[in-house]
């Protein structure tokens, strides 16, 4: 009924309406299908690892696959410590920049800066890796007086830099979408500009800002090339924040460095797929957390508005 009303008459469109609807539906469902198939493939390829390698070996802290040491804990720890470090850098800088662009900067400055930040986001990660290896890590070694600059900290700084443009871009859009009347009302009752930003605009844009941070974290945890070049790739299990200044090996770098040469269907091959699954699950948890936070936020907003 409705489609008839939109197209006017049945013979007007050369392609039948139901076909277009079916195609759009198929496109929508295909995304789910692809994710499902990827997950199934990872599951099938990694399952033999659980039979071939003992749990005590998998949970050990030694990763040396050519001698059958398959401890994945240092790799998980390495990925986590770098991601935490990158988040600590990207959130204040990213959200701060977004607030400046959206709330404080004059129009002309904002229109120059935002495209520049987006260009930064398009920098190939291998180029950043080069800069990190040749410039950042030597200076880190001298400034921090650590044995080598090839450390988790170098990786965290670069990944923070990679995540910042994503955070800025999404968070700025969210702040921009807050109605002007909110700010006007706050200023009218005597709040300062900072009080308005901190107590009114930012909370109103919270769901968008949280999405921005989660997207930034997602960007950081999956990054491969940069971390492979600057973190030293030594599989040491990090036990605290002090290990931010020693070398680490991430899950992504391990897969990238070892998958190319590993014999097909060997134990090592299956364990690499197992690491792939762990990585997949971690980003799933990050995304699910983000949606949960956004969902809860929306609900409470709806309560206030109703």
């Amino acid at each position, binding site marked *: 009924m409705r489609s008839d009303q939109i197209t006017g008459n049945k013979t007007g469109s050369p392609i039948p309406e139901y076909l277009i609807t079916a195609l759009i539906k198929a496109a929508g469902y295909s995304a789910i299908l692809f994710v499902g198939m990827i997950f199934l493939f990872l599951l099938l390829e990694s399952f033999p690892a659980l039979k071939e390698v003992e749990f005590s070996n998998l949970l050990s802290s*030694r990763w*040396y*696959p*050519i*001698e059958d*040491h398959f401890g994945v804990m240092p790799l998980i720890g390495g990925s986590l410590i770098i991601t935490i470090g990158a988040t600590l850098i990207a959130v204040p800088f990213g959200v701060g920049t977004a607030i400046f662009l959206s709330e404080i900067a004059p129009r002309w400055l904002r229109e120059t800066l935002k495209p520049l930040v987006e260009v930064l986001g398009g920098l190939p990660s291998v180029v950043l890796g080069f800069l990190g*290896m*040749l410039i950042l*890590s*030597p200076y880190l*070694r001298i400034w921090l007086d650590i*044995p*080598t*600059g*090839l450390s988790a900290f170098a990786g965290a700084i670069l990944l923070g830099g990679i995540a910042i443009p994503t955070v800025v871009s999404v968070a700025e859009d969210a702040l921009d979408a807050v109605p002007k009347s909110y700010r006007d009302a706050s200023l009218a009752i005597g709040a300062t500009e900072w009080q308005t930003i901190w107590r009114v605009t930012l909370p109103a844009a919270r769901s968008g800002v949280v999405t921005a941070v989660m997207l930034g974290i997602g960007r950081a945890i999956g990054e491969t090339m940069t971390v*492979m*070049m600057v973190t*030293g*790739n*030594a*599989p*040491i299990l990090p036990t605290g924040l002090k290990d931010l200044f*020693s*070398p680490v*090996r991430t899950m992504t770098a391990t897969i990238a*460095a*070892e998958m*190319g*040469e*590993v*014999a097909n269907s060997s134990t090592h091959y299956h364990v690499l797929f197992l690491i792939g699954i762990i990585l997949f699950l971690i980003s799933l948890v990050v995304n699910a957390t983000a949606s949960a936070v956004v969902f809860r936020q929306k609900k409470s907003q709806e309560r206030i508005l109703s």
Partner: protein
Amino acid sequence: MQYIKRLLFLSLIIFLAGCSGRGNSAQDSSHQIEVIENKGSDTIVNLALAWAEGYQVIEPTVQLSVTGGGSGTGIAALINGTVDIANASRKIKAEEREAALENGSDPVEFVIARDAIAIIVNLDNPIEHLTLQQISSIYSGAINNWNEVGGEDRPIVRLSRETNSGTHVYFLEEVIRLGDKDNQTLFAQNTLLLPSSEGIGAEIRQNPNAIGYDGLGYVTDEMKIIGVAPAAGESYIFPSAKTVNSGQYPIARDLYMYTNGEPEGVIKEYLNWILSSEAQETVTELGFVPIAK
């Protein structure tokens, strides 16, 4: 490095594809084009590519297809009969030879060049020499400060290639474990595993704490090569073509090509050419050690 190799390989494929176009017309004038498939060690792949290009000029009727992938990959392909020549930076293992015999192939070994592995440190590091035992202790984690081997009071940062590198495995077996098969010592856990020779070079150039190892061909003037003594009290030897061929330098290995049975026809001619002094000049140019005649 990996990328350069892939690029070289790709350009060779394109080059050979171009040749095969001409090959068809050559076939008409009764010149049979012969294809030799050559695969294996990444250490050797640049050398094998250089040889393939050189041989193309001399024998345009022979096409060479060269790929890397690692010593194990090359030998596996030889066992499966998909390549004519396998490149390896290590000797064929006993179980690989058994698998080959079961499959009806009989790998024949040729030493085609030698490779010295240089121990390198930063130019500011006052250390000049180390014994093999000291290098082993450094890499296994028993020695952690340069002052334990007569240097400055600095922590030692150990650099290594990734575990899939044949050089890594050679270093583990012959240096860290000193050639003892029952020895189960591993690299110290905080050894940095760098994905490329350039990664090792960049760190050695700027970090006075670092020690690394790499093929002699990858060492530049901006790094210091350490003299190595096979045992305490013996004289310290620096890597060079001469000390490698005389067997004095202790960290050197042979590089191999394997054929399926005694080579015949064009494969035999190609291997003969590789062992000629003309082809061995390429070995020196690429920083490997030519085999002594």
